[in-house]
């Protein structure tokens, strides 16, 4: 399988705070990678380094074999990746349809008709076609996140990064978002998902990476991870999170 994302000895400092410590990670094309770990472990920073929302202090990031730099980051991001955020980050001054068609029209040079056709297609995928003409503020959190996923899909990126997509949601709307993500997982999109949803991880992940203190300390298939991970940090974490 082709490699899509590779982090090479990535370190990230926020002032004196050493957030990522020599992270090495490769994600294959079409792979569903789930990153879990306690808060403050560097999971979010890791995915944010993948699209240079955070530029690594040292180390390299490769996307589809090309090294990402300050200069080419915009192009590489535009051509390859989208992101779904914890806080949705829909553009509040635009209708749902405008949110979905903005990047395809302005960055991917699609005509209005093409972009709208694409938008309606992905609105169907997330089950919100009837919301095309409303403003984001009128939607529930779960609906906003499904729109955010549709927005990411409209760019037809090969990679979608999810940074705790359900952490800001009410419990009763989490599942509708997870269902959409499970549906996506059957396609050949490379997905990197930071989440606390263990059920989702078990069901969808090809591989799970466990991070603590800025390092990857365990990785493997869901079976390996949930059944016979030996690392005490992992067991401690799973013990806490699976209890409730």
């Amino acid at each position, binding site marked *: 399988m082709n490699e899509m994302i590779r982090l090479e000895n990535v370190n990230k400092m926020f002032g004196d705070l050493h957030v990522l410590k020599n992270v090495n990670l490769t994600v294959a094309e079409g792979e569903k990678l789930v990153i879990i770990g306690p808060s403050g472990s560097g999971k979010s920073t890791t995915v944010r380094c993948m699209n240079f*929302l955070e530029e690594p202090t040292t180390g390299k990031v490769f996307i589809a074999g090309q090294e990402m730099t300050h200069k080419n980051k915009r192009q590489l991001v535009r051509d390859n990746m989208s992101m779904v*955020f914890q806080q949705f980050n829909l553009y*509040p001054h635009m209708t749902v349809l405008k949110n979905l068609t903005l990047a395809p029209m302005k960055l991917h040079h699609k005509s209005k008709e093409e972009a709208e056709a694409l938008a309606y297609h992905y609105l169907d995928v997330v089950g919100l076609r009837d919301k095309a*003409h409303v403003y984001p503020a009128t939607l529930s959190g779960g609906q906003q996140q499904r729109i955010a996923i549709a927005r990411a899909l409209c760019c037809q990126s090969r990679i979608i990064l999810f940074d705790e997509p359900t952490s800001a949601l009410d419990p009763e709307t989490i599942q509708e978002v997870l269902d959409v993500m499970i549906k996506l997982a059957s396609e050949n999109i490379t997905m990197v998902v930071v989440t606390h949803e263990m059920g989702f991880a078990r069901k969808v992940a090809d591989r799970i990476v466990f991070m603590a203190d800025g390092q990857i300390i365990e990785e493997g298939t869901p079976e390996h991870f949930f059944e016979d991970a030996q690392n005490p940090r992992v067991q401690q974490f799973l013990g806490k999170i699976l209890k409730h």
Partner: protein
Amino acid sequence: MDELFSPEAWQKLWTYRATFLTGFGNTLRTAAAALLLALVLGFLFGLMAASGKPLLRALARVYVECIQNTPVVLQMCFLYYVLAFSSVKTDIIATGIVSLGVYTGAYMAEVVRAGIGSIPKGQFEAAQSQGFGYFSTMWRIILPQSIKIILPPMVNQMVNLIKNTSCLYIVGGADLISLTYSFVTGASTGGAYAPAYILCGVLFFCICYPLSHLATRWETVLKRRESQQHLKEAA
């Protein structure tokens, strides 16, 4: 109180009405051109101040601090007399436009900077994660959202700008206040203080008041658009 109701004084005003209209016209022309300059400078320096680049931020800071911490009258004198005595040909209208434009621009820059600063970081990140560059992020995503925050203080600055044309009196301007002053102190026209200043005030009010209210209305509409349900759904 006699003079306030003296028919002669009001009659004099009517005879010389063209003076006031000329002054009013000059004030509006100066203000309009200065506003244009102020908006350009305001957005330019506001964007510089909001950018992450230390050099650009420092430049914007210097401009804003120098202009905001010296009186506009001094800036006008500086511009007018310094140029006049450096044998550069000066024009009173141009002096007004440049000095008021530069002065108001500093306040506009602060308004723009604050407006951009009020937009959540997530909006910048969403744009960046789609591959938008700095200028298209600003133009399509950040500025449209900050308009409703920028607008009310910006219109206040516009109103101030119109009123500040009166400072041009110090360099012998041709604006409404300067001409009103010439009128009431003039050898042939003098005396009608109350009617002249009342008319002058009415003219200022007539232009400033609608402006403030227009902005308030616009702000309400923009705010409502985002928070209210729009039932334009495809049926």
